[in-house]
């Protein structure tokens, strides 16, 4: 079992290329998602605050 996983992770010797490629994709896409959603949440909060102030 362990051998199978290790064999899989080694990616036929291309592990140093395959895994970073996927990692970079995940990283950049996660950064885009976090940036987008965080900005959106912040503005929702801000808006709720402003509308709460008004009568």
């Amino acid at each position, binding site marked *: 079992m362990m051998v199978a996983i290790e064999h899989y992770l080694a990616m036929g010797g*291309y592990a140093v290329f395959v895994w970073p490629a*996927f990692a*970079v994709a995940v990283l950049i*896409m996660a950064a*885009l998602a976090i940036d987008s959603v965080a*900005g*959106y949440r912040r503005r929702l909060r801000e808006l709720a605050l402003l509308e709460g102030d008004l009568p």
Partner: protein
Amino acid sequence: MFRFANPARFMRFSAAILPWCAGATALLLAAGLVLALFVSPPDYQQGEAVRIMYVHVPAAYLASLAYAVVAVASAVSLIWRHPLADIAAQEAAPLGAGFTLICLISGSLWGEPMWGTWWVWDARLTSVLVLFFLYLGYIALVHAFDDPTRGARAGAILALVGVVNLPIIKFSVDWWSTLHQPESIFRLGGPTIAAAMLWPLAVMALGFTLFFVTLLLVRMRSRLLAAKIRALRLVG
């Protein structure tokens, strides 16, 4: 065409479809990852390294798609002066730049085992690099003005200039690379691809596209909220 162009209507419409988009994105990307990493077979020539294709090719496709969105939205904004189009163009650009960066880095990681070098001045990679510069120029220009409407207008013009120039640049780069590399070492993707790889690739590409659509909607909603906040502050 302008059914959803009214900001209020856009907010309602996007609120309705956003959860579906997000859900579908998550499902497709998860399925795509499983297919790409476990189900699809290694290539008889490239071995396991071919798996890089499943991020590289969709990223390349999204990089172009996002630029097309920027360009179409820019044209709409210039012709009809629609504020929603400005927002769409400006918010699609950073996403497109992100995909372009993924495409470049994964291309480089794929190139090292295949070509034995991290960077090859091959026509396709070079074109993507130029596209990346166009994105950077667009984003820098949009943010370079104190008056945001000027930035939007200048950015829109630049996006259209870029669209006219991209095919010319692509053609010239292809021309240049045939002069310097007569034998094509290796084609990325292409029609010779096996069906067992086509499916995972299609699922990934669809997942990437929906990811882009979802984030574009979120970012556009965010911009409209910001405008509302500024309007409230101005009155209050």
